[in-house]
């Protein structure tokens, strides 16, 4: 494991992007940060700008307008940037799959490192997904 990977995984800074979700996944993401689960113990925290982030956390079904902005944000992110898809909508667009406004799923737009299914996923599932992501990047 190189120095950059070690530094990356020591403390994941997360930028949270909603691409047209119903906000239920966003609430569960916030729930992870509240005292009950408190992922900040592990150095995971939300940041206000993509330029400070290691992880791009995406919720929602990537509609035509937000998909453009998502790709733009991914290009602005410092590499390596890990993309995590949260919830059924960002995995496969869920019930919005025939929608005129959701033509492409998230993983056709940017490379995705981890998928966390659920509608919405529980905070436990989100934490477990992040743990798996860290182990995957470490190469275990």
């Amino acid at each position: 494991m190189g120095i950059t990977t070690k530094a990356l995984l020591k403390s994941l800074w997360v930028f949270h992007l909603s691409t047209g979700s119903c906000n239920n996944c966003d609430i569960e993401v916030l729930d992870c940060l509240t005292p009950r689960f408190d992922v900040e113990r592990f150095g995971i925290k939300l940041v206000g700008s993509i330029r400070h982030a290691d992880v791009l956390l995406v919720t929602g079904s990537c509609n035509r307008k937000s998909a453009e902005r998502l790709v733009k944000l991914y290009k602005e992110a410092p590499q390596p940037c890990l993309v995590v898809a949260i919830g059924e909508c960002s995995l496969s667009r869920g019930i919005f799959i025939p929608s005129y406004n959701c033509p492409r799923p998230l993983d056709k737009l940017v490379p995705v490192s981890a998928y966390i299914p659920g509608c919405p996923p529980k905070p436990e599932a989100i934490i477990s997904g992040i743990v798996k992501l860290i182990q995957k990047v470490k190469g275990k």
Partner: protein
Amino acid sequence: MIKRKEVLADLQTRFKKEITDIFDKSPHRVYIDIPPSALVPMSRYIFQDLGARFNIASGVDTRSHIEILYHFTIEDINLLISLRVRLNRQKPVIASLTTVCEAANWIEREIHELLGVDFTGHPDLRRLLLSDQWPDKVYPLRRDYKEWDKGAVRDRGVK
């Protein structure tokens, strides 16, 4: 204070010629069918004289017509009046409600881009919600909408 019964009787006498049907659904809900020409005078009366609030308008493509419902609430008596107009599917045109109430502006823009209804007299009928790549004259909430985007992926990637 004006009562529900009085409001309905008043509307029925005042707009006797225009009203084609009244559907009294529940104590809090009434649907009034009118021709498109009667929309502006009638909503002006409901909005300005009866002191109702303009909630929202909603458009539907039924198979025979394009239907727009204009919802007004009279809060004192807890009554929701929905004015229902039916427009020709081939050429849906109706007078804009922005002359009566400014709040109708954005919802008319939305109905215009999603259902293709033409609002005559609207000050600024630009696109509101759809993306810039969306082609002209393609209305996604019409029943005969066909997918135009060749790059769209409509499967979940599993066999």
